[in-house]
């Protein structure tokens, strides 16, 4: 018998994949996913494991006397940076020997099943407030604060609903931007709002794919060319969908 029993191998592989999967699905950088998996494997006695991560799948191979290769397909991704933080903590504790493999798996399953930290209504409220604040930051007047809040909040609420209802990407962003454009034009026409351009810019900001942009740059820098380019393309398409939504409303109004 070798130093590693077969069940230990399987447990370590499962642990690595689960950790990687949660980070990738919650919006972590590719580099962090690969690094975390390799570190956990090293702590479990597999110093020469390999992982290849793209936004849509993970391939993970452990060396040693009984090589294991596993593959996970990632279909849905969301943004939940607190899960990334929690998995990061778990991986750090595994590294210092604080957690055994089975304890860590139990903890990770708990993290995976946990709900997001902030309820939907709070996210909509903060998107609304952010829209108003952006209007001021872009040198708008306080009299447009409330209209921008309304348009931004409504647009973001619609985005959340559509993301659940329609599985086609970019459509939710397009339709939400259309609603934001429509509401802003309505506000400007009825005299409730004053500066149409600033209202639209402010309330569209919560839709901006900030995480994708940042991650695309960080991935490219770390040499993850495939991930970086695909995240960049996703960000570009999202931005184009927002632009198209606004453009439709503007040209209808002209």
């Amino acid at each position, binding site marked *: 018998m070798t130093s590693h029993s077969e069940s230990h191998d399987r447990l370590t592989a499962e642990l690595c994949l689960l950790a990687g999967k949660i980070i990738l699905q919650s919006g972590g950088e590719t580099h962090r996913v690969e690094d975390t998996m390799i570190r956990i494997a090293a702590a479990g006695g597999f110093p020469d494991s390999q992982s290849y991560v793209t936004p849509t799948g993970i391939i993970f191979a452990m060396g040693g006397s009984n090589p294991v290769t596993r593959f996970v397909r990632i279909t849905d991704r969301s943004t939940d940076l607190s899960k990334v933080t929690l998995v990061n903590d778990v991986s750090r504790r595994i590294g210092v020997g604080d957690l055994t493999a089975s304890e860590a798996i139990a903890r990770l399953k708990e993290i995976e099943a946990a709900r997001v930290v902030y309820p939907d209504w709070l996210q909509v409220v903060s998107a609304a407030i952010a829209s108003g*604040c952006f209007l001021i930051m872009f040198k708008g007047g306080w009299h447009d604060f409330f209209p921008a809040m309304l348009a931004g909040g409504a647009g973001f609420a619609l985005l959340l609903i559509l993301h659940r209802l329609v599985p086609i990407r970019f459509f939710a962003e397009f339709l939400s931007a259309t609603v934001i454009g429509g509401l802003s034009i309505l506000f400007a026409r009825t005299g409730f709002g004053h500066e149409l351009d600033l209202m*639209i810019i402010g309330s569209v900001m919560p839709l901006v794919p900030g995480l994708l*942009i*940042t991650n695309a740059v960080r991935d490219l820098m770390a040499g993850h060319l495939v991930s970086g380019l695909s995240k960049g393309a996703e960000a570009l398409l999202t931005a184009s969908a927002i632009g198209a939504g606004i453009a439709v409303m503007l040209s209808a109004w002209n």
Partner: protein
Amino acid sequence: MITILEQLATSFVASAAFGLIFNVPKRSLIQCGIVGMLGWALYVVLTQQAINPTIATLLAAGCVAVLSQIMAKLYRMPIIVFNVSGIIPLVPGGLAYNAMRSAVENEFDAALQLGTQAFMISGAIAMGLVLSEVINQAIRRSRL
């Protein structure tokens, strides 16, 4: 003076609100706000000194990235928790919007000009992030 306070307050709230949208841990919301506020403050001050917006964005993005690295070290959290919400205010939403609006109004010359500017500023954000990473790696390597 009031406008400065106004800008500081709104950029703090907006960045923290963005942290919330990205579901960052509760104990990092304030830090997200601070990172975003300082980055935006640097941008506003630089543009008021008639410095080219592209350069101002580059420096502000670098500032956001360096602050995020410090926060990530201090609070032992992944760096993206902090830099994502700090970068958002620098995104050239206004330019992109104006470019698109010109295109809709069939003013393609203006659209191309504004679009190029927006593209340059996006590049500056990326460069700012890269720059701070380079500095960070250099410091880490030189210690080893």
